[in-house]
């Protein structure tokens, strides 16, 4: 079952975005593995013995904890472990980018959030410090000597919009903490196609090093614990776009917002008077429109924007106690999920629900598409409507065709009404992406070979320590966090900095019961924080 994150996820994509080594087709994978020192016998065996691996001649390292992905989820996990007293020598990180935000930065930049643009999480959602204090807001207020920023932190979100940090603040913070916890010494640049159970407990993690595309130098790590933080890699664009692309061979005019698409803005600047259809009403659509309008003003692009809403929200909806604010087509909400999921009463309720299905239902109710109520965005669309270059279209996107004149015809259908169509020059899709768990090589293998199970929303089933159900092997455990564990019994906003840090803490708690790390009680927490403030090793 695929999870259509179109409506639920402020999501990411896509083949290229996951880095040069991230997304591979499985058939290719099998071929490659056969050529890379792993025998057919090994590829077929779900449990590997030490002898088998030794006989293959592949070099084996022994590291107790390995995290696969090297993205934000891995970063949160490693940071929590280091603060809980685990030395760097006992942890390995495998991923395509040396910095924890490599993939996120690509996705942010594609969706028009460069270093100076602001993220969509709050001041205390601080990746470089699990305590979240002092937050990004306080730092910015002091750095810029800005009492206004300070006042804003007091007044948000009542008298003003939430403070949100610039992307650069996130990168700098993550770099600083990475240096402090010796991230580089734990990092191996590469791709993990397989994780196998080890006869006698623990796992073997197969690594294809990045510098050696030939796959002749496959490495193996033997580990007691594995953590999977593989992000959105298995995401792909929606069906109608796939169809359009395969029938026309054109991926220049029709793009997903998370794919690099700077060429569109460049072409618009060169040829004024073009038309763009922006599909979807998630915040990434507004980020794109912000850029289009900025260019319109700066370079006189005269661009006309059609904005397609599947559900046009006229006003607040829902009963008084579950009422989503809304206007001008949008539901409003500061962050990707309602604030209450971040630890509040909703989280408590979620935890108490008995079944996976009930959880899936609540998840759908709180995860509907909503955008933050930013003044700039509201002003821009009001001006666009007044001046006639911003037009709202309501309906579902249902087909794209390339016309002879080089323009794209987009069909829009609306229940109970005849379908209409629009002719535009470019289509930027911000309705989401499809995430199919099975499309990801490691996960598919985990499901087939390691006993992993799926949950009600089609993602990996995990317990309340984020251990992947069904994968335990002797004293070894496999953990996971990120979008692939959406629908877990504990953390609702699974793709947020906060959610990833929380998941990491829950895993650490479990590991401290195993004796692998120290519990993070008051003393260790305060001491750890002091070390972070002083920038001394944990």
């Amino acid at each position, binding site marked *: 079952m695929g999870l259509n994150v179109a409506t639920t996820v402020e999501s990411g994509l896509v083949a290229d975005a996951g880095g040069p080594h991230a997304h591979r087709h499985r058939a290719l994978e099998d071929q490659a593995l056969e050529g890379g020192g792993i025998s057919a016998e090994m590829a077929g065996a779900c449990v590997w013995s030490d002898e088998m691996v030794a006989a293959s001649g592949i070099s084996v390292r022994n590291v107790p904890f390995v995290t696969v992905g090297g993205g934000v989820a891995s970063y949160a996990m490693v940071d929590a472990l280091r603060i809980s007293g685990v030395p760097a020598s006992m942890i390995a990180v495998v991923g395509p980018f040396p910095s924890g935000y490599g993939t996120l930065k690509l996705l942010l930049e594609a969706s028009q959030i460069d270093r100076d643009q602001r993220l969509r999480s709050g001041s*205390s959602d601080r990746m470089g410090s699990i305590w979240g204090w002092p937050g990004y807001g306080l730092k910015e207020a002091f750095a810029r000597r800005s009492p206004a920023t300070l006042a804003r932190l*007091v007044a948000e979100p009542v008298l003003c919009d939430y403070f949100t940090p610039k992307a650069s603040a996130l990168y700098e913070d993550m770099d600083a903490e990475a240096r402090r916890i010796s991230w580089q010494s734990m990092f191996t640049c590469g791709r993990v196609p397989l994780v196998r159970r080890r006869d006698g407990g623990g796992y073997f993690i197969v690594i294809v090093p990045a510098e050696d595309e030939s796959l002749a130098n496959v490495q193996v790590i033997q580990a007691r614990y594995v953590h999977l933080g593989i992000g959105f890699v298995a995401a792909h664009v929606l069906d109608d776009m796939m169809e359009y692309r395969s029938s026309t061979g054109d991926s220049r005019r029709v793009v997903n917002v998370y794919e690099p698409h700077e060429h569109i803005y460049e072409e618009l600047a060169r040829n004024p008077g073009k038309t763009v259809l922006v599909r979807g009403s998630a915040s990434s659509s507004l980020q794109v429109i912000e850029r289009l309008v900025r260019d319109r003003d700066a370079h006189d692009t005269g661009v006309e924007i059609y904005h397609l809403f599947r559900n046009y929200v006229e006003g607040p909806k829902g009963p008084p106690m579950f009422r989503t604010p809304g206007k001008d087509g949008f539901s409003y909400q500061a962050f990707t999920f309602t*604030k209450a999921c971040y*630890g*509040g*009463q909703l989280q408590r309720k979620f935890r108490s629900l008995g079944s996976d299905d009930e959880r899936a239902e609540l998840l759908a109710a709180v995860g509907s598409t909503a955008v933050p109520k930013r003044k700039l965005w509201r002003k821009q669309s009001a001006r666009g409507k007044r001046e006639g270059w911003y037009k709202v279209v309501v309906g579902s996107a249902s087909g794209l065709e390339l016309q002879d004149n080089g323009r794209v015809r987009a069909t829009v259908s609306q229940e109970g009404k005849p379908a209409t169509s629009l002719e535009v020059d470019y289509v930027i899709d911000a309705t989401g992406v499809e995430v199919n768990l099975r499309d990801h090589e490691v996960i598919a293998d985990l499901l087939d070979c390691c006993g992993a199970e799926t949950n009600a929303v089609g993602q990996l089933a995990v317990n309340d320590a984020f251990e992947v159900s069904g994968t335990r092997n002797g004293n070894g455990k496999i953990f996971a966090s990120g979008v692939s564990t959406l629908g877990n019994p504990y953390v609702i906003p699974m793709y947020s900095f906060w959610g990833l840090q929380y998941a990491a803490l829950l895993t650490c708690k479990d590991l401290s019961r195993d004796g692998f790390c120290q519990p993070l009680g008051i003393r260790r927490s*305060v001491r750890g924080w002091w070390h972070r403030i002083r920038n001394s090793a944990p």
Partner: protein
Amino acid sequence: MTFSLRGRIQTRLFLAATVGVIWTAIITPFLPSPPMGSIGGVGMVPMQMSKFMVPIAVPYNPIPFDYRMTFETLGLMALVGIAWELLYHLLQQFRWDKDWPPLFTLVALVPEGIVLWYVIHLTHVENGTWALTSSGFPMFAIHLATTWVLMWLFMVGPMKVVSLKWRFEGGELV
């Protein structure tokens, strides 16, 4: 802040018992002491028994009485606060985000302060007039406002350092 109901109550009690107690201990001697007699409570007479069981007047030292008043006020703030938290939790239900912005907590000082002023009269922690011209009012107001702001500052910041659980589980400490 996104509180669960338990989280709210635990947070208030914790802050009162830590920041509140420490600050009250520090600030009380510096507060404008009301004249004798306006302080209520049990055994309020500034006298002491001589060893012959004859009451003798001692020179008036307001400090112990001030302490009793400030600590009893603090205790009542925490206790009455539980009822306030129930009300806030109810109001929170009407917010889509089911959160409680820090600003709400800060300005709650005003309604809570007004109610508390009456409560300390009802419970005879403070005697004398209820009017704001009461000689005990400056002490009450300065004590409550400073304690409140400090508790608030601690809550929006260092609290997360003390307890990671607090940060991730709706303000719950246990």
